[in-house]
């Protein structure tokens, strides 16, 4: 068997009760680029961390060539032949040192190098590494003077000095321009021809089209699909990653009322294409798109956290340009932020206090909070949302993820609003709570506009009357969620072929 061959069988990993990898099987052949796709929380980064020796696996096997691969730590993983270049470039280079030291630093860190630097031989060795990789920089220059692309190439070159069997590139182009990315792809081609197995993690379809020999889609800690052959099935890969088709739900149709939010010629970023968007009363609209497509920027713009570069937003006909969340809330626009643990939960507060946080004024008389009114409201919401707890005085962290998320939703349902924005409301939520939350959002949707940002298509289909697809910080397609052609949505999500705006029936 080829040395540069990596095979994983039955890989499992759990954090507490949360099973992140559930028996994952994956082959990475030598001399081929395998692109790994997966939505947030699919388990990609956990997989990478196991391969790079940061985490220990709970179960399963990894074979590298004909040996078992069980690294004791990151350094050991590198010694055994798996090298990872991480997403954030400056983790991979030491900016204060020169190129030569950067390229040879791992040699220096090896025990037995000796106490003193041998500058000349170091530079010669570095020059050789650089020329082999096709990097043309003076090895005596400090890395801090180089651009992002050169830094990235140096990080990879540094990785290659270990002669790895498997090279993992974790979103390597996320901060590169397209010409810079081109240089990176050339280098990847070179490495491929030298027989290195490459695992390439990216959300950029253009990268994947350019470089992938095969695509692996990951979902919920498992491989959802492997796509190989002459013509790769890109849409199939995205479909497998977003995992449509698991749930069929019937939505009670609603009759959209008058427009609440009108966005005209909105440019989310200075170089993004402007778009129009209208959100109507009673209607639930889902925004979907890949990571970095601008979903969150849209939500943030509506909540006063991001100032669009152009265009106008109107709420109930009045111009709306909030300076911050408190102004947005006063204008009747509420937002439940994504990443519950860092953006929403107040860990030291109990359920009732977490719920009342944005609207304490409503529970206060002359600034004194009425615990009685606060608790009564909390009890009502706990009943309404079926939150599993002993009482409204339970600490928020004693609840399961799904129940915590319900509390975060309840926080914004306690008062009436004109627009409710929910950014990733199903993150870290079990399937039952997910259904409860979706139901509750739809049930309370009358009298307001609702915008839900979700990465998974399933979730959009479950909750929305209308589905908006974003790509490159602009709206690229719009679908009514009735007998909708899922394939068409997937095409739009995958982009950029589907840039023409279409209105499905």
């Amino acid at each position, binding site marked *: 068997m080829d040395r540069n061959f990596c095979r994983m069988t039955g890989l499992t990993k759990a954090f507490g*009760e*949360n*099973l*992140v990898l*559930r028996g994952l099987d994956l082959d990475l052949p030598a001399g081929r680029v395998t692109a790994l796709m997966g939505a947030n*929380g699919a388990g990609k980064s956990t997989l990478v961390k196991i391969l790079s020796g940061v985490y220990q696996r709970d179960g399963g096997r990894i074979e590298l060539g004909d040996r078992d691969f069980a690294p004791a730590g990151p350094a050991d993983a590198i010694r055994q032949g798996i090298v990872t270049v991480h997403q954030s470039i400056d983790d991979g280079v030491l900016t204060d040192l020169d190129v030569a030291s950067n390229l040879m630093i791992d040699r220096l860190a090896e025990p037995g190098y000796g106490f003193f630097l041998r500058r000349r031989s170091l530079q010669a060795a570095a020059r050789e590494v650089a020329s082999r990789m096709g990097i043309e920089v003076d090895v005596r220059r400090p890395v801090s003077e180089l651009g992002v692309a050169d830094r990235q190439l140096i990080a990879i070159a540094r990785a290659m000095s270990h002669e790895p069997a498997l090279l993992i590139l974790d979103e390597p182009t996320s901060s590169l321009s397209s010409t810079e990315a081109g240089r990176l792809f050339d280098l990847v081609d070179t490495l491929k021809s030298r027989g290195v197995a490459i695992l390439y993690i990216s959300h950029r379809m253009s990268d994947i089209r350019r470089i992938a020999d095969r695509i692996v889609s990951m979902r*919920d*800690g498992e491989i959802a699909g492997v796509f190989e052959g002459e013509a790769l099935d890109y849409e199939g890969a995205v479909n497998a990653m977003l995992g449509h088709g698991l749930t069929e739900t019937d939505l009670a149709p609603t009759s959209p009322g008058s427009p609440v939010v009108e966005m005209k010629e909105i440019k989310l970023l200075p170089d993004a294409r402007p778009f129009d968007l209208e959100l109507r009363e009673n209607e639930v609209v889902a925004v979907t798109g890949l990571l970095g497509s601008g979903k969150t920027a849209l939500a943030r713009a509506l*909540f006063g956290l991001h100032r669009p570069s152009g265009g106008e937003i109107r709420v109930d006909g009045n111009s709306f340009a909030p300076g*911050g*969340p*408190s102004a*947005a*809330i*006063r204008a009747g626009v509420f*937002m439940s*932020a994504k990443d519950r643990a*860092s*953006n*929403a*939960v*107040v*860990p*030291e*507060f109990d359920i009732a*206090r977490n719920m009342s*946080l*944005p609207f*304490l*004024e409503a*529970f*206060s008389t002359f*600034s*004194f*909070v009425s615990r009685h009114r606060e608790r009564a409201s909390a009890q009502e919401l706990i009943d309404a949302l079926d939150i*599993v*707890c*002993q009482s409204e005085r*339970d*600490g928020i*962290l*004693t*609840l*399961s*993820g*799904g*129940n915590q998320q319900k509390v975060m939703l309840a*926080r914004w349902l306690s008062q009436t609003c004109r627009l409710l924005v929910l950014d990733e409301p*199903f*993150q*870290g*939520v*079990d*399937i*039952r*709570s*997910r259904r409860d939350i979706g139901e509750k959002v739809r049930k309370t949707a009358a009298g307001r506009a609702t915008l839900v940002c979700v990465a998974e298509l399933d979730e959009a289909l479950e909750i929305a009357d209308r589905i908006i697809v974003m790509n490159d910080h602009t709206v690229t397609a719009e679908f009514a969620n009735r007998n909708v052609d899922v394939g068409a949505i997937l095409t739009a999500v995958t982009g950029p072929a589907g840039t023409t705006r279409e209105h499905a029936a």
Partner: protein
Amino acid sequence: MTAEVDKPARVSGAKGRGRSDLLDLAIRYGFLALLLGLVVFFSIFAEGFAGPRSAVFIFQSVAFTGILALGVTCTLVVGGFDLSIGSVATSSMMLSAYMMVVLEQSAGVAILACLVMGALIGVFNGILIVKFRVPDLLATLGMMFLLIGLQRIPTEGRSISTGMTLPSGETATGTFSPFFLAMGRHRFDLVLENLVPISVVFLIVIGILVWCFLELTRHGRLMYAVGSNARAAALTGTNVNGYKILAYAISGVLASVGGLLLAARLGRGDIASGTNLLLDAVAAALIGFAVLGAAKPNAFGTAMGALFVGILLQGLTMMNAPYYTQDFIKGAVLVVALVFTFALSARRARGGT
């Protein structure tokens, strides 16, 4: 990660319950029980400890640090820390003396000037932290050095008292007004004649005010939210920076009140006094975490913490423990209280009760 299973929040076997209840009880009332035990112990073994006069003496020694500690508590609530309180207090003491003795102003003007100074320093601390992103400890540490130096400049490092020689060669003729001195020295009659000193009344009133503010008002609640998760608080429309600045302003004002009371007690602007104020106040506020198992900064705990230290020192003094053991004992109490707070309460939180 959609793999969580709903379960009742609190699961504890019948067997484990008894122990966890006991632990709960220990965490909640352990420190107060210790306080009571201390009082009983000293009443029996330290002659003259049990009695109203001794109690009043303890309260009086606690008053300065207690008031400062309440200010620190406010900054701890928003997740900050104010190291400048000790130097704000001594600056306030020097300023009040300077106003009255050198500038010959009335007591009212001197008090007002000190309170304004405290508030301004607090706001300035807050702005350093909020706008210039200087970490709390470093900003207030810098402020501490700055004030320690600044308060010596007008008198070229000398203490201020009536009749002192000014840098210009003249003699200062101003005096502390009787009204001002009364703040530090007058005692009210309560059952016994001349029992309750005013500084104790100040401590109690300020303690109640701070407690009400932190526990009962929405501003206090929002300050706790800021300290617990500033990002979440901001995303619910809370003016995070405003509350941080407010916390430091409260701390500055309370520290200057402490300094005023100290000046009134001493009757002079003593350059050498007040060195222990910072550490004692911080210790009291941190010990307060352990009271009633709060595991967070709180006004009641802070007051109890200050009292605890006061009782301990007074008792030991009356049992003829040498003065140089005091700091060691304070430190030991603080370490034990911190273990109480962080090890035991953290375990309780993880246990899900």
